[in-house]
């Protein structure tokens, strides 16, 4: 397993609080990695450390074989792009202008808008399906459209590694699928290594091919969803009782939590024998 991005013996935290101690993480090259775990388990902190937004107290982040601190800030920004949890679009800025800001690490005082920049911005807007909105004001767009615009900004950066901090939070299910399908299309090109912090487990297991499960600042399990996800693992990570069934559409693991107040019915529908399973596609 090769890895362009790895954390070695990482200790990270904020102010007086240590979030993770001696963390070792490897992101497989070309993977779509989902980081899962309960709130405040250190997922976003790990992502911030991997993207050098947070300086570790000990250990190091290795990017393309070198400590990330050995690169200049712009050099890192040409190799690794991050979609932060929250960004502010300045009032009245157009989609094209916002996306073009992703070219900053490729520009200089004398070269502020090359033909390359123009091509990359157009390609990023086309890939995310926002090219038709290029001249629209960002604050007029829907939540899903806006998230695709932010993704376009990171894509315009043309980095082989993309880190996404909760890209689907606050989006409804349609927009979640929209954003994650886009991530999968990027992953399918084979040109990208994607790492996303995701809260929706079923979405994570459906779209990602590699999962890092975290709890209390430690990595509990890593591997392909099919290999590592069990009711025991999810139960232990989130302190819940649940069952794991195959996703009726993709066959990937799907987590169904049990209700503490109402004990589960012992008879689970046998999904494989259930011919009457309705899908929204059929009923529509």
């Amino acid at each position, binding site marked *: 397993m090769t890895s362009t991005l790895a954390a070695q013996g990482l200790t990270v935290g*904020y102010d007086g609080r240590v979030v993770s101690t001696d963390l070792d993480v490897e992101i497989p090259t070309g993977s779509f990695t989902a980081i899962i775990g309960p709130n405040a388990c250190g997922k976003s902190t790990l992502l911030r450390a991997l993207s050098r937004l947070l300086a570790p107290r000990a250990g190091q982040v290795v990017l393309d074989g070198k400590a990330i601190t050995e690169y200049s800030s712009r050099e890192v920004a040409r190799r690794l792009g991050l979609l932060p949890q*929250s960004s*502010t679009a300045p*009032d009245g800025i157009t989609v094209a202008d916002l996306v073009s800001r992703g070219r900053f690490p490729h520009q200089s005082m*004398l070269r502020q808008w090359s033909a390359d920049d123009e091509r990359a911005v157009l390609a990023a807007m086309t890939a995310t399906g926002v090219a*038709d909105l290029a001249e629209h004001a960002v604050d007029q767009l829907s939540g899903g459209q806006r998230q695709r615009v932010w993704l376009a900004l990171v894509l315009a950066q043309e980095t082989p590694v993309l880190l996404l901090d909760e890209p689907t939070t606050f989006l409804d299910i349609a927009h979640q699928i929209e954003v994650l399908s886009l991530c999968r299309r990027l992953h399918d090109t084979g040109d990208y290594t994607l790492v996303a912090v995701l809260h929706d487990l079923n979405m994570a297991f459906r779209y990602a091919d590699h999962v890092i499960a975290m709890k209390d600042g430690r990595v509990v399990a890593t591997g392909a969803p099919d290999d590592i996800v069990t009711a025991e693992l999810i139960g232990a990570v989130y302190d819940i009782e649940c069952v794991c069934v195959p996703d009726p559409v993709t066959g990937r693991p799907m987590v169904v939590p049990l209700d503490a107040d109402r004990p589960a019915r012992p008879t689970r529908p046998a999904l494989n024998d259930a011919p009457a399973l309705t899908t929204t596609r059929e009923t529509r």
Partner: protein
Amino acid sequence: MTAATALPDSAGRAPAPRSRVFRRGPLSWRWHPRTTAVCVALTVLVLVLGVLVMATGTIQLTPSEVLAGLTGRTDDAVARKVVTDIRLPRLLTAVFVGACLGTAGAVFQSISRNALGSPDIIGFTTGSATGAVAQIVLINAGATATAVSAVAGGLITALVVYALSSKGGVTGGFRLVLVGIGVGSMLAAVNTLLLSRAGIEQAMSAEIWLAGSLNARAWEHVWPVAVGFVALLPVILALGRHLDLMEMGDDAARQLGVRVERTRLVLMVAAVSMTALATASAGPVAFVALAAPQLVVRVTRSVRAPLASSAFMGAALVVAADLLTQHLPVNAAIPIGRMTGLLGGAYLLWLLTRSRQV
């Protein structure tokens, strides 16, 4: 790709107008025709107002006499003296004070992501005043000492505000505004206290300084603010694009390779120095730093106030205010600081009643 119709944003403004591209070999820039046009128009305005300022006063001159005085091609010694020794220093002080305040205002409003984040609101001008008043009342060592104390007062105030508003290496925008307003009110009280402790003559001269004035400006008032502006503007302009990115949030800017805290510190030091130098030259000239960038945003329809245009706008505002103070039908000449305070106060109220955010 079909040309999409430009939709107004939620504030009802049209989206920023399209830019043009200039490319030659490895060089490439984007420029905004509208912003360039505004800069040209403001330059012309400053020139026209400048000639008017130079031509009017106790001794009336024609524009051609003004030009002749400037170029030295006149035999009229009085006209030459009036033009080059009295009116030109006054005009240039007004121009550079305005340019400094406009630029500094644009920088601080961008850093704090808030129109109220301008140096006159967040206490820096008051801090300069404290320095100057303390010098006049406690030491009384002359005009140069007052200017130096004003610069020192402004810088120290900025340092205190920066230290109090930065938390874990991050200077929050709104935090900066609130801390600045707090520090500013304290310093205003200190200023009053100093005045009440002073002898009548010192109190008078301090009051005159506090009103902000362009009267009796000589070349010694022009040089510090002019040199400061010319030296600091390139530093600020070079970081303009970083400023753009930082408006998206610190994380977004840092992931694009901007060293956010360092950039912010350099910009703040440069902008505070500009404010302090301007205040040292003309006293506290209120509201120009607040109004100039806001006016530029509206006229250029930009997302952020373009820095150079804000400098031009600031210069135009101060020169216009100076012209007004000299021509209002009142007996006493109103000090420039009071005039901009009057106009700017009205503008601030209008801004506040229209804003949905404050």
